[in-house]
């Protein structure tokens, strides 16, 4: 993807920019969902799903600039965030439901 002069090809740059923009879109949509959705549970949907894909897209966009080892590391970080995001969403929802049932 990077040529001998250390520059990205035009196609790689376009694809990378596109993926970064898609990631940004999902982050913004997730943040707007956090503000607009009516209750804590619905807000959890917004932040978990949109941000997971947003980060994945940004990681994919950054992969054009890195070497193999760095790209594998980025992928690992995304997978860890994906796993921790889905588990923490469930734990937060369980906590909120317990609090709701108490009141």
């Amino acid at each position: 993807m990077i040529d001998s002069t250390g520059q990205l090809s035009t196609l790689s740059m376009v694809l990378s920019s596109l993926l970064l923009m898609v990631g940004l879109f999902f982050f913004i949509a997730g943040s707007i969902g956090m503000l607009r959705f009516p209750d804590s549970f619905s807000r959890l949907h917004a932040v978990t799903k949109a941000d997971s894909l947003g980060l994945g897209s940004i990681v994919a966009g950054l992969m054009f600039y890195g070497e193999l080892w760095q790209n594998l590391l980025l992928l690992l970080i995304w997978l860890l965030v994906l796993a921790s995001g889905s588990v923490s969403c469930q734990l937060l929802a369980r906590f909120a439901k317990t609090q709701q049932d108490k009141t």
Partner: protein
Amino acid sequence: MILQQGGSIFIRYSALSGVFALCWAALTGGRGWWFFLPLCLLLLLWCYWAKLSLPPVRFKAVPGFLLFFSRQLILGAWDVAWRALAPSPRLAPQWQPYAISLAQPASQRLLASMVSLLPGTCAVNIETGQPDVLLLHVLDGDANWRSGVAALEQQLTLLLCDEPVHGQVP
């Protein structure tokens, strides 16, 4: 038989410590092993005590599962983004029970974690009973969320060796 079981447990926990070591090496650049070793031991003890281990998978089912999960992840994010950005968001949040057909507690926990990344669903709790029920928060009760959860459950049945496929004994 006991030796065979012991060997299987040893292989599973060795694989688990291998995964921990790989993650540590990647995230720290191979530094701080003196801290990692006792931490890994504690993690393995906790996994043994809580009966957690890497579930054995059917490797033939892995590509299909990854494709399915990637598609659902994109659909889930698109669904929530569309609802967040629509001029008048279409939301009808509801609590819905879902009867789980997966038999193993570990598979059920995996389903509960993954379902939160599917379009319109968020798992809250697993209520044990006959059958076990997954309590879900759905963004739109009128949408067809049930088919997505059922499809994920079917994919997990195909993926995990501990789950019987079409009446087979695991």
